[in-house]
């Protein structure tokens, strides 16, 4: 990830979204693939790097870790992560609002 936190990369955006509730690695990939109609399929390296970076930034945290039953590790978004997501959402909203200007009739 670059030094800048915003704008979020598509991968970061969708991973944060998929972690609004507890989810594990494969679950995140599946949900993102579904949400984007198969357009964004996260590779293992991309997902691992993003999970590491976002844990360092405290945007997500490990939700459950049951080593005895070998249960899959689950992650969940934190308040800081929600903040980052909302910042990005506001930026995207601005883009979309302004994009609407294209539809205005030109005055000639």
């Amino acid at each position, binding site marked *: 990830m670059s030094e800048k936190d915003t704008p979020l*990369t598509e991968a970061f955006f969708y991973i944060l979204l998929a972690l609004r509730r507890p989810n594990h690695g*494969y679950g995140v990939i599946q949900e993102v693939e579904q949400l984007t109609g198969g357009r964004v399929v996260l*590779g293992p390296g991309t997902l691992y790097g993003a999970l590491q970076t976002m844990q360092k930034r405290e945007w997500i945290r490990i939700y459950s870790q049951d080593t005895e039953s070998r249960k899959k590790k689950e992650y969940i978004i934190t308040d800081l992560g929600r903040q980052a997501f909302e910042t990005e959402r506001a930026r995207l909203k601005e883009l979309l609002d302004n994009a609407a200007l294209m539809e205005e009739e030109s005055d000639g």
Partner: protein
Amino acid sequence: MVKFRLYYNKDTETAWLNEMAAEGWALTGFFAGFYRFEKCEKGEYIYQIDFGDKLYAVSNEYRELMNELGVEIMVLWGYWIILRKKAADGPFELYTDVESEIEHYRKIRRMFKAVTILGLICFGGEVLSGLMGNDFAWIFGILILVCIMITANAAFRTDDVLADLEEKKSGIASERRGKNIPALISMGLLINCCVPLVDDSISASISTVIHILAIAMMCVGLVMLVQRRKR
């Protein structure tokens, strides 16, 4: 079956491993250039090579995630991680966006640069030792020089890969390309200039070898420069 190969480009190495797998040979082990293969169904596996954060180890989290995604960790060698996945489980790409790919190649470049600098320091030590009359030091020095050329070349190549990725990301052609003259040329020049100064203290054959090496370095550097300009 065991095959010996020396790769310092993970992309061509990956391509070769996948070629072997397509022919029914699955990589199962690696040690210092020796690749061990076992028979498999033709095209049963897809191989990928990752670059980790730790030497000869990966974190538990990495291991668990790969396990969950049906990816097998086959080899840990230095920072390199050779992975494979059953082809039947769908496509296997490690990095699926430009941003993470850039991050991946930046880590690789950092390693090649560090090794090159380390090599240069060692080379300096050998030269000093050689000047003080240790003839073996010249031999080690030349060996180290060969290694430096390989890692420096790898770092430059990774530079090119990164420039392409940055271009893909921003849509703006980068201007860096071909700007910096490969260090090899200047290194070759420097050596050629320095050797005559110590000609009296080393034997003629050694000084000839060093001269030839320095000229070879300049030639390689020149070829690299021309190649970089051409693209």
